[in-house]
């Protein structure tokens, strides 16, 4: 029997690692990878809460499925933007993408 705490601590660690990646990496593609890690941590939590506290209804699973759809949409749009940006300005370094900075 695995206590719920193991899953929660694992998800918290995965979220923090993803957060570090988002904040520290220079490459915009690598920043999106950090976002994916954070979304996975959220999904682990949703499915774990469903299994441990709410196994009779499927609310946790339904929300996890929505997170999957949002993650897929976010990656498709984000990577398309970076590829377009790379074509026009020749960079994917987040620091140099400051066109809209006042």
């Amino acid at each position, binding site marked *: 029997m695995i206590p719920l705490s193991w899953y929660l601590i694992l998800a918290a*660690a995965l*979220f923090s690692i993803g957060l*570090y990646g988002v*904040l*520290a990496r220079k490459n915009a593609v690598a920043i999106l990878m950090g976002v994916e890690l954070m979304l*996975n941590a959220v999904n682990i939590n949703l499915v774990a809460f*469903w299994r441990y506290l709410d196994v009779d209804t499927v609310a946790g699973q*339904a929300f996890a499925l929505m997170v999957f759809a949002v993650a897929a949409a976010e*990656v498709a*749009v984000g990577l398309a933007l970076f590829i377009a940006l790379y074509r026009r300005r020749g960079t994917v370094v987040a620091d140099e993408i400051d066109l809209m900075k006042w």
Partner: protein
Amino acid sequence: MTVEQFVFLVFAVITLGAALMVVTDRKVIHSALWLILSLFGVAGLYVLLNAGFFAVVQVVVYIGAIAILFIFAAMLTRKAMEDVGPQVNPGWPAAALIGGVVFVALAWMLSHWGQFMALPPAFADDTPTLTQLGVALVSPDAYVIPFEIASVLLVAAMVGALYAAWGKKK
């Protein structure tokens, strides 16, 4: 320690170790490959949580589609970074500090919650979870609106991605 706990620890080490490599590896293409391993670890955790459907969706959607998209993007933007020079911002110690503080805060907050050490309720192997989920997703009493909105979101994302990545018309 039971077999289940040992398997959990194996998957946890795979997930977290690969995630650490994702955020620290110098080459973006290597980061994408580590990301695949990390997502596999999460799929294993879904199996331990009696959510086999999610393990399959994790492999098909995350590893089959999203990770491949990352690999394509890393290859298409290869020349921009050249994988030389620093791959992290000068302020990365602050980022590591923020990550650590968030982890400690989450762990502290969760450990003061009553159900923190909850054990899983019994789960019969023939529970029709997938049937329940499928019915709930198309039932007007449950999640049909979020489900349809997710479909619209995916279509919008596809159109937007095509528009953004389309070559410049001369």
